[in-house]
């Protein structure tokens, strides 16, 4: 069995990244009341400091930080490792959490007057839990510790769904809990099988040991599918739309921007670090095919929503699909293995920029809801004048999600398109472009409604906090400015330069195409201007198609169908993992 790396000098930082949030959680919970928020904010500052320190050490050139817990080397001990993948995620997640925490000070603040509320205590305590669990997911080098981290993440996320305690959110939370638990037992079963075969759960050691034997194929299929259920990759997304749309905005931002990235990150870990030699091209294609279906169905169903928060939730269903497109593009046919390269960099960049943009979008949607007292897209006229900053935030987050320059998603899309071109897999390039168009269409649709003139000026039902508006705007700007790191020093200069005239031309095309799609597929629009019989016929046809997608989504989100889909997906992956020839 290969020797494990020893603890590195700054390895203790990794322990702090996990310990500090959980310690803060316990203290905040013990003191409760108005102290909870203060302790949580202090802990957030401390953890962000640890994340910054880890990033500084990494930028200084130490490739991998390692800490062996208790000095015990794997397979008996457990190692924490900060490899480049973790080093990308930790600062990005820290930034998003800080943004969300500032935003949440308005909704879950604990001012001097009223008594403590259950929702704000739970929010602050669980925000720390989710952060600690995410850091453990990124840093742990042991598959069983990752299982525990994943469960901690779910335990933190489920109550977030039901923070306001309405019956429909409780139902959404229970559905999420049960489906996520089913996913995690699949993952656990796979872990147990791997231990039975090799006697270790350490990622670095397993990587050297695994061979494409039947037991490994079964374990890999079970673990992958279990993680996909927790990530809500289409068609295993039954729990996501009601859960993410029903939660309070700050909680939705955490769920949509961060929590799903935990289980997604584990799929990346599993495929690139544990099973790079076991993964076959058909299995990678299958994973990306689920992603492509997610992009298509998620986007079209998003376009057919009447409520803004549901639209944003379905947009998440679609964006999860993007995160899985990198797998076949990272497959090296000559080596017969997954290799980290431009495609993986693109996928990671996509995840980060989505985390920021989607958090900003949910935060903006929450502010619109608060001000209007509803979130019906068709009745948003005039809000652009009442809340210009928030509508701008929504627009900027939308531009970032579409993959327009200079956003992080733009650079990600470029990297993936290049990888698709280099490996001759043009169909994934097509999916990326169509996905961008569809994303543009619902952003244009919402902005079109928000910017129309209202018959009478809007009377805001509640004042929104400036701090909340600015923190949402800051996250949207971060996502949109992420592509500019390409102008920085090496290694960032390998990223595509977003400030090229040609890119702005294609951005314009995306926006115009999106506007046309919005006119064709959107709900409750006036008849097409100057539309002849042909245009009307076209619109009727596309509306029928859109309604078909909505109905299909409804069928797939029924419990028996979704659980059967889980089993079938596991079987399909088992077959796809089988070596050829």
């Amino acid at each position, binding site marked *: 069995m290969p020797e494990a790396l020893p603890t590195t000098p700054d390895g203790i930082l990794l322990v702090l990244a996990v310990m500090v949030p959980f310690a803060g959680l316990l203290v905040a919970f013990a003191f409760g009341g108005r102290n909870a928020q203060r302790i949580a904010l202090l802990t957030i500052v401390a953890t962000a400091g640890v994340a910054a320190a880890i990033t500084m050490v990494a930028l200084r050139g130490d490739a991998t930080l390692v800490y062996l817990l208790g000095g015990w080397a794997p*397979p*008996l001990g457990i190692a924490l490792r900060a490899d480049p993948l973790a080093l990308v995620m930790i600062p990005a997640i820290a930034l998003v959490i800080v943004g969300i925490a500032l935003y949440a000070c308005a909704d879950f603040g604990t001012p001097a007057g009223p008594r403590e509320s259950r929702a704000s205590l739970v929010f602050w305590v669980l925000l720390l839990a989710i952060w600690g669990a995410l850091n453990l997911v990124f840093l742990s080098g042991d598959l*069983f510790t990752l*299982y*525990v981290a994943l*469960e901690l993440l*779910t*335990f933190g996320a*489920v*109550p977030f769904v*039901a923070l*306001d*305690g*309405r*019956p*429909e959110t*409780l*139902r*959404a*939370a*229970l*559905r999420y*809990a*049960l489906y996520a*638990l*089913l996913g*995690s*037992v699949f993952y*656990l*079963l796979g872990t*147990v099988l791997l*231990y*039975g*075969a*090799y*006697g*270790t759960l350490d990622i670095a050691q397993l990587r050297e040991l695994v061979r494409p034997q039947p037991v490994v194929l079964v374990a890999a299929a079970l673990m992958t599918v279990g993680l996909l259920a927790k990530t809500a990759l289409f068609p295993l997304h*039954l729990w996501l*739309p*009601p859960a993410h*749309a*029903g939660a309070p905005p700050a909680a939705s931002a955490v769920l949509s921007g961060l929590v799903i990235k935990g289980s997604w990150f584990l799929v990346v870990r599993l495929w690139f670090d544990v099973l790079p030699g076991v993964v076959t091209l058909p299995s990678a294609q299958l994973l990306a095919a689920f992603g492509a279906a997610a992009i298509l169905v998620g986007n079209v169903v998003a376009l057919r929503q009447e*409520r*803004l*928060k*549901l639209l944003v*939730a379905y947009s998440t269903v679609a964006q999860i699909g993007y995160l899985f497109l990198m797998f076949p593009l990272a497959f090296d046919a000559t080596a017969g293995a997954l290799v980290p390269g431009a495609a993986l960099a693109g996928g990671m960049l996509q995840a980060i920029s989505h985390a920021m943009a989607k958090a900003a979008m949910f935060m903006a949607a929450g502010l619109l809801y608060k001000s209007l*007292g*509803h*979130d*019906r897209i068709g009745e948003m006229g005039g809000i652009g004048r009442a809340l210009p900053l928030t509508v701008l935030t929504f627009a900027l987050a939308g531009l970032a999600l579409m993959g327009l320059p200079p956003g992080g998603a733009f650079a990600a899309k470029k990297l993936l398109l290049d990888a698709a071109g280099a490996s001759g897999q043009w169909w994934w390039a097509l999916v990326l472009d169509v996905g961008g168009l569809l994303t543009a269409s619902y952003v244009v649709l919402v902005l079109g409604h928000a910017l129309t003139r209202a018959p009478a000026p809007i009377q805001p*039902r509640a004042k929104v906090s400036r701090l909340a508006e600015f923190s949402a705007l800051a996250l949207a700007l971060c996502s949109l400015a992420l592509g500019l790191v390409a102008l920085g020093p090496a290694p960032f200069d390998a990223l595509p330069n977003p400030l090229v005239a040609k890119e702005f031309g294609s951005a314009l095309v995306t926006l115009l195409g999106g506007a046309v799609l919005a006119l064709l597929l959107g709900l409750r629009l006036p008849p097409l201007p100057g539309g002849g019989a042909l245009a009307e016929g076209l619109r009727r046809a596309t509306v029928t198609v859109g309604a078909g997608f909505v109905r299909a989504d*409804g069928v797939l*989100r*029924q*419990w*028996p169908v979704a*659980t*059967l889909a889980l*089993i079938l997906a596991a079987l399909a992956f088992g077959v796809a993992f089988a070596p050829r020839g």
Partner: protein
Amino acid sequence: MIDIATLFGLCASVLVGIGVYAMITSPQPLRKIVAFNVIGNGIFVLFGAIAYRGAGAGWGGDPVPQALLITGLVVSFCATALAVSLLLRQHQVAGTASVASEPATSEATPDA
């Protein structure tokens, strides 16, 4: 003659199979929670069998799975407690409890 590790492995498979079946077919959330526990116990039995076999390390009896198993039990106990408390709360608030899909709504009851 079938050896004891294989026998326990088969029992584990049966438990997992029963649990997955109930998870898919039974509409009541409480039964789904029980089904989750049946699957979990199946996995723990399998882990016990692997420990008895000595795992890949080739020892005669492996203590590591027992440590992991106890952690797994704690985690699954917490998961069950969380799910049951959500179920109870839902029953308290709505009078019924289910996880059936309904047209998802994002609109709060108007607060005015």
